[in-house]
């Protein structure tokens, strides 16, 4: 993940990035390194609201567990990049939402390496995009030859509020073991017109009706977060700007 030369759109992990914004921030500081020792527990909420590029390297020791909650909403270009290495029996959980409007370009790029047997990883990502915004999720799960009984899941959904917005989603699996479970699902859609009409028919103005449905769409990703209420409130405020 640590790139020595300025990336271009030819680099897979940067193909949808705002390269001008990356160049302006170049060279990037060294990624934040987090090591959770064997049997340890780690939890963090990350709110990207200022147009930053955040790179985190996370290593989970044997039987360790980490739970990250991410809200990616700010700046003209905001990127959150996670490089996670799981040792035997480790458990990684990511719940992420990115919400963008105008000309924002937001991305979440993850590489989860199951280096040893029996580790689990679970990623849920929801994007809401309006205007000409772009939201990208690139999620690579790499399973090493010895990492049998790996259990990995990626659940990715994006909601487009305008036909001019763009969602990119690419789950990528690289599996060298033969006894693994790697699920991935992806859906990109629009708000259901009939549901919106139903809500409006009870008296909700169109903006409020959309906000209610979008709130429900992203709500689940923050379940169990320590700062759950704060994250929900920030997400709701951002959704309010979009509808």
């Amino acid at each position: 993940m640590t790139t020595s030369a300025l990336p271009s759109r030819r680099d897979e992990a940067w193909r949808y990035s705002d390269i001008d914004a990356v160049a302006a921030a170049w060279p990037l500081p060294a990624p934040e390194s987090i090591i959770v020792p064997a049997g340890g527990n780690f939890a963090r909420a990350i709110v990207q609201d200022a147009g930053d590029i955040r790179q985190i390297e996370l290593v989970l020791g044997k039987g360790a567990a980490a739970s990250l909650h991410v809200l990616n909403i700010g700046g003209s270009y905001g990127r959150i990049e996670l490089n996670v290495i799981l040792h035997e029996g480790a458990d990684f959980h990511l719940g992420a939402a990115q919400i963008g409007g105008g000309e924002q370009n937001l991305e979440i790029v993850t590489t989860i390496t199951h280096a040893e047997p029996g580790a689990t990883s679970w990623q849920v990502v929801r994007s809401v995009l309006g205007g000409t915004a772009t939201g990208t999720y690139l999620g690579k799960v790499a399973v090493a030859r010895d990492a049998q009984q790996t259990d990995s899941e990626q659940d990715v959904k994006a909601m487009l509020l305008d036909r001019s917005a763009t969602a990119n989603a690419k789950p990528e699996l690289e599996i060298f073991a033969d006894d693994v479970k790697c699920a991935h699902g992806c859906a990109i859609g629009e708000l259901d017109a009939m549901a919106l009409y139903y809500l409006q028919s009870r008296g909700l103005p169109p903006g409020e009706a959309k906000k209610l449905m979008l709130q429900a769409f992203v709500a689940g990703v923050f379940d169990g977060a320590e700062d759950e209420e704060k994250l929900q409130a920030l997400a709701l405020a951002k959704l309010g700007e979009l509808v």
Partner: protein
Amino acid sequence: MLKIENLHATVADKPILKGLSLAINAGEIHAIMGPNGAGKSTLSYVLGGRPGYEVTEGSVDFDGQDLLDMEPHERAAAGLFLGFQYPVEIPGVSNVQFLRESLNAQRKARGLEPLSGGDFLKLAREKAGLLKMDMDMLKRPVNVGFSGGEKKRNEMVQMGIIDPKLAILDETDSGLDIDALRTVGDGINAIMRRPDKAVLLITHYQRLLDYVQPDFVHVLAAGRIVKSGGPELARELEEHGYAEIAA
């Protein structure tokens, strides 16, 4: 209260309503019956302002206001309630939150203070009790996993909470078993049979009308009302079928 004159409407450029006229006064319950494809549901959606239902001619006056000029949420705030034939499931949105926000949006439009959480729950509990619906169902996501009958009951609980002036109930009786039909009928009477309110019941069958006595019955066929009468007309239809009456 509601005055429909010479209403023509199309759906996807196909003419469905072809010159429908109907007047409903406060205190009255009207039933519209008719065969499949007559335009019954189209009428309810046109009155409810559903996108895609295009009015090409005619007018609808609701308490002195041009109904056709209003957005769906404005129609609700003006006192119109549409009971859906197929209530929509909305995952993740709780009934209680949805109804409280809806009711308060209507109150705001009328210049009233919002109802507090406690007052709203009291009201919701009362109306759910009236329709014999478990309060737990009100806390669940809107209509998700509800049976057909539970969805219809939920529509009536919503109607009770919102307390509209005019209710248009599109096949509220379909999907109900006999006990639920009685409960829903009693609910409609309790909520809407008042001198300042009116109801337009849209139905295929006589059976709901056994519980909710209409003052007027109309037969809709090929986009127009072809016959009007009292409650006895519904029984005639049941006996002889639409073909004979509408001919």
